[in-house]
């Protein structure tokens, strides 16, 4: 009686028995690796800007407070990006002929805004409110990293939803006193979690409803 299967099909089947799960696992690992790679997350990838504005020079070097430029971080959902006029408050008097600042001067003269490349950019289906985070004890460096050490801004965190939920589910390790919000060097103390529920009470935070979908996806 003629055989339905070629003798080769035995070894083919044995290879596939081991090979197919291995291939699937490799594919899964590949997807995971790409998803968390800097290519997708852009973590530690400094973006080019029309003017190489150095936060390191302006914040660490000159001691300018965050709120001089990002004015509405405590009062509005949007932290605020400084208008050209803010740059010109100083640069109409210092470095007035520097070639690196030419785009700023052109923007001011022609009344055309500067086109900055957005580094921390959440998708449009997410609502993020800066003001409530600042008011409830989350400092700048917790999410943005040590901006005062960045010659060009890069993302310090993935800003993935999973990362947001880590804090929303248990905010205690990330909360800091109100006078430390703008302190770039602040690190949580060793007894942060041992403080128990008190930071949540101090800052009036209720994690029990902070994890509803419509909290952010409005």
């Amino acid at each position, binding site marked *: 009686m003629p055989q339905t299967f070629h003798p080769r099909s035995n070894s083919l089947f044995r290879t596939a028995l081991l090979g197919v799960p291995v291939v699937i696992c490799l594919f899964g690992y590949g997807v995971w690796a790409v998803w968390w790679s800097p290519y997708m997350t852009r973590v530690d990838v400094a*973006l080019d800007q029309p003017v190489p504005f150095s936060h390191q020079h302006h914040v660490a070097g000159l001691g300018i407070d965050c709120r001089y430029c990002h004015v*509405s971080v405590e*009062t*509005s959902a949007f932290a*605020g*990006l400084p208008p050209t*006029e803010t740059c010109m408050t100083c640069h109409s008097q210092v470095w007035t002929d520097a070639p690196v600042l030419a785009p700023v001067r052109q923007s001011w003269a022609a009344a055309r805004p500067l086109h900055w*490349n957005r580094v921390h*950019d959440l998708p449009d289906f997410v609502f993020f409110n800066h003001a409530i985070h600042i008011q409830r004890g989350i400092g700048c460096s917790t999410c943005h990293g040590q901006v005062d050490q960045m010659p060009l801004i890069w993302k310090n965190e993935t800003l993935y939803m999973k990362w947001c939920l880590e804090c929303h589910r248990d905010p205690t390790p990330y909360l800091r006193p109100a006078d430390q919000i703008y302190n770039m060097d602040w690190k949580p103390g060793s007894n942060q979690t041992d403080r128990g529920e008190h930071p949540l009470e101090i800052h009036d935070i209720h994690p029990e409803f902070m994890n509803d979908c419509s909290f952010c996806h409005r």
Partner: protein
Amino acid sequence: MSSFPHYGKNTPAPHTSRIDWSSLRARLKGQGKQYWRSLKEAAQTPEFRALLEREFPDGASEWTGSLSRREFLLLVSSSLLLGGLAGCTRQPVEQILPYVQQPSDMTLGEPLSFATAMPLSGFGVGMVVQSREGRPIKADGNRLHPASLGGSDVWLQTAIYGLYDPDRAKAILHYGKASTSPAFIAALHMALQFQGQRQGAGLRFLTGNVTSPTLAAQLKALLEKHPQAKWHQYEPINRDHALEGARLAFGEYVAPQYQLHKSAVIVSLDSDFLYVHPMRLRHVAAAVCHLGVLAP
């Protein structure tokens, strides 16, 4: 079942007979108005009659295309599923453009409210318009304005669309071509100078209903300067009859406002004082607060 006619690939297609035009014309000539949907119907060709008799034309239920149903369904479902792959991209770098000079009272991300007014048939109603980053999004009544008392109606609510009307003039046009404000002023000046020599005999002003004392004073001054000029007022949906009645009652053209909260019973004869009266919003507030349910 054998009485059913069997249609299928084996049924020969009837041959197409040519239409005899001359006999068709002759037939239709003397018949007056006769409606037909196709020439074959008018000519009553044998295959048309056969088509009418068959419930299902030859081969109607067969799929004779090269793409089989299975392949078609495969393509459709796979396109639907693969369309989801469009989401598996990394977020593109977007640009953010701040102001060059930010208005000092604007907090980005927070709305700004402006108190303004809107004329309707010449009578102004106070409004509050909420705008975000310079884009007005909502118009409501101004509770501090006596003509509104916080209420708004369909005209106030839809006034926001007027701000986004594509026909709204965005620039000065001279014979359809963009021009400048100084050019317009210069042209107007020249025309007025010419009219000034003739005491304004060729000058006409067309306005709607004017209730503004300032505008009225300005127009009066203009008419004194050009005595021969004429001022025409026209309002397409107007209260001319009500004004005439007021003149008969009070001796001058006045627009009455009613103090509805002082009345127990109101009889309105063809006066829609809650919907189209200049003081309608005040009347609604009074009626709702003081009179309870109103009969239609």
